């Protein structure tokens, strides 16, 4: 019997389709629970001159108002640096920042009271964009550098050089369940918190910090989340903290559930990036040198920006061997929301920059971009298979996913058909692109690469499974059940997965970095192995065997491998173990081996392994409207030996579509005063079901077991998002077909407006004839 590797439905499947699955705000409310409501700052940057709450006091149902003076501990929720003031004292740092919170018997009362609070400001000039920040030297950090070879010298000797700029847009998480926490004080100084958080331990630590109490006085429990995507890694903390302060002050249970508009105004998003580059390359399209500056828009506070920037710097190579590379990174400080983790965590931004560069190199040479991509792949061993930060890619599968996806998608035939279509259509053009993904797996911060689990077996043979990861729809609990059932050799229906809680498994890492299954799976397996090692002697004794060696746990039975006919039931062994006074509970622990990082030298092995994928996308672009239709998508993705192909398929499809939304339709617009103008689904467009192509085929890379990872599997949460770069590049290819350009400048996201501008550029800048003289290999043109 094998549980791992099966297409098991999500463990909450029936709860989801019946509406019975309980999220934070779906619990039965305790008596007397209060609600909170924010008072939003009216300026992007301003001195607060006064806060007048007197009119609010007249609102029936108002219980109290929270301002900075009400914070019993430290007035700060910063995850890395203590630079994130929770309730501002003298200055607001972004438009919409919560200046005060009202606490009401009902949400209505709190809302009405919040409207009656008057805040006086003295506006200050804000810094709103990365360009503003560069001009005014407004940064959170000093520049970081990673260098390989000698890019300056290599640029001097390169056949050709290009210089350019790539802007990458941000993205709102738009988890369907907005930020939600309930805080329930017990009257004895302890706080039970239910929070929609990807990082219960950090939420626990920060609540303890703002309340000024030891961490052990706070328990944070995450039942499940209605989506996270990185947006509930650090962003859950300030709102849970506000509810905790209200509970501290009133002694009553308090809930916070942001409405959608407030969620979009108040919470950090994917970092927008700006890249400045000079690239040197040979006449045949091999990149010999790259010098690139990456600026990340950190927003008003640091949040998780340093590791996000680092991951961008470590993915600016994507799948390409660049012998001379210098990447400098810096975090801009702007008066906008504090940008944060979002699926890919900087990796996607780094990859968009290099894919933009590779496309530009290809078009400048009049070579097909996919040919130039392929020519630059990491390959062989040693130098040509080693990244710019010194990690050799021991399990390089780039060429495998690349050739598999081209075969599946029949790329060669379709290229011919597309060329014919474009010759016979003046106002609509089609484009096809293939892009690779190589994504490093492990938290950049080495200490986060650890996990714990707790298995409790009861005397009837039923089992509670606890682990440190949180469930946000990615199927982690389902996979952990499979791992536990597989390891203990018992049926899935013995288990109950417990809500993630800091009083069961302490000091956990965020469920992030795609690492949930890798880390927690090993910890769960470790706990199960411990229990097996205790049950095996009990079973051996029951079977009158001298030695507990070679006991097999399978299908709810325990037996000796050499005498399978004599066997005992799992629950009978459990009963006997209890009678023999053998412990039936065990913790499990795991830390990822062999990883290290030297921040000083920019060298190390930050990633335990890499996940690979490649996607072929074909689009049709309308030359009148700039709209595109995604016609066909084929993906080959490497998930190792999948723990659950059903879940992994969902992750790949979902990640791809979310990435497509980021790159083609999700546009965050701040106006000149720093006000977010896209604060609702009416103005901020995420993909609907209609944007998904009818032909959307996903293949898991075969024969892909990954050594040293739980049951040979691989992380899957983030890597597929970057497969969507193929959609952006396919749009660019279609735009190129409107003329014969040697450069297709396409801004992000590739909205119809951006596409029309690019088409206009292409129609007026077609200079391909001038470049054909340097094309060494016309036969490669398609």
């Amino acid at each position: 019997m094998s549980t791992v590797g099966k297409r098991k439905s999500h463990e909450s499947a029936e709860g989801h389709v019946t509406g019975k699955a309980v999220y934070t705000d779906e619990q039965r409310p305790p008596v007397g629970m209060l609600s909170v409501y924010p008072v939003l700052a009216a300026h992007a940057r301003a001195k607060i001159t006064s806060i007048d709450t007197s009119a609010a006091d007249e609102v029936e149902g108002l219980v109290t108002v929270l301002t900075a003076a009400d914070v019993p501990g430290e007035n700060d929720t910063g995850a890395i640096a203590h630079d994130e003031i929770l309730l501002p004292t003298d200055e607001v740092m972004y438009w919409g920042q919560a200046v005060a919170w009202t606490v009401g018997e009902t949400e209505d009362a709190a809302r009405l009271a919040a409207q009656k609070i008057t805040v006086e400001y003295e506006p200050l000039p804000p810094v709103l964009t990365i360009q503003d920040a560069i001009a005014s030297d407004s940064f959170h950090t000093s520049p970081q550098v990673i260098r390989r070879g000698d890019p300056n010298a290599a640029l001097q000797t390169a056949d050709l050089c290009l210089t350019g700029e790539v802007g990458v847009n941000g993205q709102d998480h738009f988890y369907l369940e907005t930020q939600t926490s309930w805080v329930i004080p017990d009257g004895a100084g302890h706080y039970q918190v239910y929070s929609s958080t990807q990082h219960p331990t950090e939420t626990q630590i920060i609540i303890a910090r703002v309340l000024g109490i030891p961490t052990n006085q706070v328990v944070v429990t995450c039942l499940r989340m209605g989506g996270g995507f990185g947006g509930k890694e650090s962003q859950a903390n300030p709102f849970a903290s506000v509810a905790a302060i209200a509970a501290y002050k009133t002694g009553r249970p308090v809930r916070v559930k942001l409405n959608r508009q407030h969620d979009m105004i108040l919470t950090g998003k994917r970092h927008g990036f700006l890249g400045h580059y000079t690239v040197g390359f040979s006449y045949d399209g091999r990149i010999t040198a790259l010098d690139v500056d990456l600026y990340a828009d950190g927003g008003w506070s640091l949040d998780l920006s340093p590791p996000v920037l680092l991951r961008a710097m470590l993915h600016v190579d994507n799948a390409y061997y660049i012998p001379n590379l210098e990447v400098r990174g810096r975090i801009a400080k702007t008066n906008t929301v504090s940008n944060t983790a979002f699926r890919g965590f900087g990796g996607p931004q780094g990859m968009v920059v290099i894919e933009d560069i590779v496309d530009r190199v290809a078009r400048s040479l009049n070579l097909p971009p996919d040919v130039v991509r392929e020519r630059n792949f990491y390959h062989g061993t040693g130098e040509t298979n080693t990244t710019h930060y010194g990690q050799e890619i021991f399990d390089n599968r780039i060429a495998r996913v690349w050739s598999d996806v081209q075969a599946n998608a029949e790329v060669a035939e379709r290229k011919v058909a597309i060329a014919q279509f474009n010759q016979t259509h003046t106002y609509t053009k089609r484009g096809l692109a293939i892009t690779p993904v190589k994504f490093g797996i492990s938290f950049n911060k080495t200490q986060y690469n650890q996990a714990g689990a707790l298995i409790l077996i009861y005397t009837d043979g039923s089992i509670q499974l606890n682990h440190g990861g949180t469930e946000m729809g990615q199927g982690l609990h389902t996979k952990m059940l499979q791992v536990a059932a597989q390891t203990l050799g018992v049926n899935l229906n013995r288990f109950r997965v417990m809500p993630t809680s800091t009083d069961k498994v302490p000091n956990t890492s965020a469920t992030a970095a795609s690492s949930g299954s890798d880390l927690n799976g090993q910890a769960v397996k470790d706990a199960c192995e411990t229990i097996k090692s205790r049950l095996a002697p009990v079973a051996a004794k029951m079977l009158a065997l001298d030695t507990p060696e070679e006991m097999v746990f399978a299908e709810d039975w325990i037996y000796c491998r050499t005498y399978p006919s004599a066997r005992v039931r799992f629950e009978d062994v459990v009963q006997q173990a209890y009678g023999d006074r053998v412990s039936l509970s065990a913790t499990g622990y795991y830390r990822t081996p062999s990883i290290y990082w030297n921040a000083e030298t920019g060298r190390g092995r930050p990633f335990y392994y890499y996940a690979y994928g490649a996607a072929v996308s074909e689009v049709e672009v309308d030359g009148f409207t700039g709209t595109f239709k995604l016609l066909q998508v084929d993906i080959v993705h490497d998930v190792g030996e999948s723990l659950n192909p059903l879940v992994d398929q969902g992750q790949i499809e979902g990640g791809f579509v979310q990435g497509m939304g980021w790159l083609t339709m999700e546009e965050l617009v701040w106006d000149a005063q720093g006000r977010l103008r896209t604060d609702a689904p009416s103005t901020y467009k995420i993909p609907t079901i209609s944007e998904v192509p009818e032909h959307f085929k996903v293949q898991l890379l075969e024969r892909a077991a990954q050594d040293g990872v739980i049951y040979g599997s691989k992380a899957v949460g983030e890597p597929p998002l970057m497969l969507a770069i193929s959609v952006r590049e396919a749009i660019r290819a279609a735009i190129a077909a409107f003329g014969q350009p040697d450069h297709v400048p396409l801004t992000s996201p590739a909205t119809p407006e951006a596409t029309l501008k690019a088409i206009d550029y292409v129609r007026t800048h077609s200079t391909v004839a001038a470049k054909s003289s340097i094309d060494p290999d016309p036969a490669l043109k398609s």
Partner: protein
Amino acid sequence: MQDPEERTKRQTSRRNFLGQALTAAGTAIAAPTLIHQATSAQNMNTTQTPAPGEMAVTLTVNGKPRSLTLEPRVTLLDALREQLGLVGSKKGCDHGQCGACTVLIDGERVYSCLALAVMQEGKAITTVEGLANGDVLHPVQDAFIDNDGFQCGYCTPGQVCASVALLDEIKRGCASAITPDLTRAPQLADLSEAEIKERLSGNLCRCSAYNGIVAAVQQAAGQQPPAPAAAMLLTEPAEVLV
């Protein structure tokens, strides 16, 4: 599609397999302290004397009359969630833009965040909680499980209700904006993928479990084989040794 073996198990013994065993985080999650303190949603709303500014109404929800008093401005969604304790319908945006609050009123799908509760007297309101017949799931609910039409599950109640209404609209001959031939009513058997998508474009899923959702509707429409959209080129992996 999920593991066929699992599907058989669910059909024979759903409650045992999913209801008790695996939905631990689903049905009985509240901590003991919460259960003791919990207010009964029913008890909270038995008062028949409206406070100033409130009205007494009786709503028929999932076949049962429910009396409550509320202000005329209260949405059906807030009445369901905050007063009747029916929290299956979700508040994703509260502006009629995401679809997570979709319920059925007299069989038609409605965004309950845009409907006023007091206007629903005398109408039959069905929420996601009212679709199953006891332990027997509605075929659309079954189809969502079979085709993995969800990830985080937060939009799922709305998706399921919208899909139930969609199928009924086809049976009643309703055209959509993209129905190719308005002289011929669309049929369940040949309902195209494009039609399904058009008719579900008012329900957002940020996890983008859209392929599974299309496949679920195809299955519930009786189409065989369902799910060209959800095709995955996969051979079942070899047994993995412990």
